[in-house]
């Protein structure tokens, strides 16, 4: 471990402050706890909230996995992983099952998580009511008094305009029948995985200075209408590499002639399936 930085970059007092916010978030599931977000050596939008939460959770024995849109090898994931390798010296992995702490942007791994794992989300805008009610003083009051009619106005507008609930990511949820929460911009396909999850789920918004949490086995319900129930959706294909029919897919344009393929967005999940012998439509060539 390089000795010019404290373990995991942040000083111990800062980590304590963040841990206190996390504990409060765990105690009040779905409630946005304000915290004194620090300047991090990376721009806002790169996951400064998630990085601070991860830094506050890490211990030297941890094994860290970082994913961006499900992939371990994209710029954002690679740089955050390197950041912690350098400042904390922890072991890293791409295998979901081997990780003790997973920091994610925009996805929940396909493989079910365990009680000894922590999933840390990077959150750009923590306030689900923001787009309809711009006043922060008012949204805080609405959370406090459980005035959530406005959330359904957003869904109403979706149906009125598109014939169905067209919100496909950052789909609002209600936590334990109390707080309405923005699950970060994960696809609504992942929403059911939020509920009753064995792992501790933590959400960090650096620019907005908010932390919130879902303790293990928390009940999380996606908002909907009686006559327009919530449906988790994904592209209607199988993975072209591993043949999985039940994983969230990315569409990849392969040439200028309109050629395209669908592949698992969770790269570790896809690799494991291929190593186990599953083959998709294009699995031989790719």
């Amino acid at each position, binding site marked *: 471990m390089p000795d010019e930085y404290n373990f995991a970059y942040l000083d111990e007092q800062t980590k304590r402050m963040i841990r206190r916010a996390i504990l409060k978030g765990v105690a009040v599931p779905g409630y946005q706890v304000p915290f004194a977000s620090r300047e991090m050596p990376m721009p806002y939008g790169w996951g400064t909230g998630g990085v601070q939460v991860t830094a506050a959770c890490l211990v030297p024995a941890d094994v860290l996995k970082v994913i961006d849109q499900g992939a371990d090898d994209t710029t954002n994931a690679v740089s955050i992983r390197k950041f912690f390798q350098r400042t904390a010296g922890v072991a890293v992995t791409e295998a979901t099952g081997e990780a003790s702490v997973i920091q994610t942007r925009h996805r929940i791994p396909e493989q079910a998580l365990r009680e000894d794992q922590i999933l840390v989300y990077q959150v750009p805008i923590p306030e689900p009511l923001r787009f*309809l009610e711009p006043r922060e003083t008012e949204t805080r*009051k609405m959370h406090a*008094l459980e005035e959530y*009619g*406005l959330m*359904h106005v957003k869904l109403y507008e979706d149906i*009125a305009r598109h014939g169905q609930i067209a919100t496909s990511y950052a789909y609002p949820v209600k936590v334990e029948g109390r707080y309405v929460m923005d699950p970060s911009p994960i696809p609504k396909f992942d929403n059911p995985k939020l509920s009753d999850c064995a792992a501790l789920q933590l959400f960090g918004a650096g620019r907005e200075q908010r932390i919130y949490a879902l303790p293990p086995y928390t009940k999380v319900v996606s908002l909907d*209408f*009686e006559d327009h129930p919530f449906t988790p959706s994904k592209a209607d294909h199988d993975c072209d590499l591993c043949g999985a029919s039940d994983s969230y897919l990315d569409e990849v344009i392969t040439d200028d002639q309109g050629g395209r393929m669908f592949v698992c967005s969770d790269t570790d999940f896809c690799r494991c399936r291929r190593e186990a012998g599953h083959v998709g439509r294009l699995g031989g060539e790719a």
Partner: protein
Amino acid sequence: MTLQSATGPEFSQKIRAPDQPLLRVSGLTKRYGARIGCADVCFDLFPGEVLGIVGESGSGKSTLLSCLAGHLAPDAGEVIFATAEGPRDTLQMTEPDRRRLSRTDWAFVHQNPRDGLRMGVSAGGNVGERLMAVGARHYGAIRDKATDWLGRVEIAADRIDDRPSAFSGGMQQRLQIARNLVTAPRLVFMDEPTGGLDVSVQARLLDLLRGLVRDLGLSVIIVTHDLAVVRLLADRLMVMKGGRVVEQGLTDQVLDDPQHAYTQLLVSSVLQV
């Protein structure tokens, strides 16, 4: 030709003056430092009554309305509303209770529709919001009710998915009224509802309001500086000056036989058409 006499409780309720006030205001006072916003205002409002509050700019009428509606905390006084559970002082209510009241039994129509509408939300969503706020979760039912209310305020059903920004000023004001009345409130506060509208559009709105007041049995407190509006809309009138009520009574009596010097000046200052 003779008219069959109407019977039933609805009829007898209308010919009798109701016994219990819907709103009972006493000693309501609001100061801005040394200056008086409104002072020692007292009145009762009975079910189905329309009370007009007139006065020039700065007379305290808007301050009074804000205090009544709970938008402003007065320094002294009581505002007792006959809730379903009996009379309660709304100034002593907890904030959640008061906010619940203001989206169920109460409604507030702003002078500028932009203050009372969500401009980024469709007409249907605007009308449906109060329904969803009190727990409606069936899209089809919400939409049907919104369509019905748009019709009642004379907005064509095919405009339901348009945003208010695409509406004229008069339409926006009618939409604001529909949005407020959809949950069948019992008391409606109105702040200069016809201000800023063309005279012809005003007339249409007045007619609409009168019909709604009569058909729904609404109680209304309406603040305006337009004496013609209160003459047509209000049963009773309160005249304010310098934060105090200088005269109150039947609307036509106050306008035709004003007692207070200020009211006489106010009435005689109106241009005759």
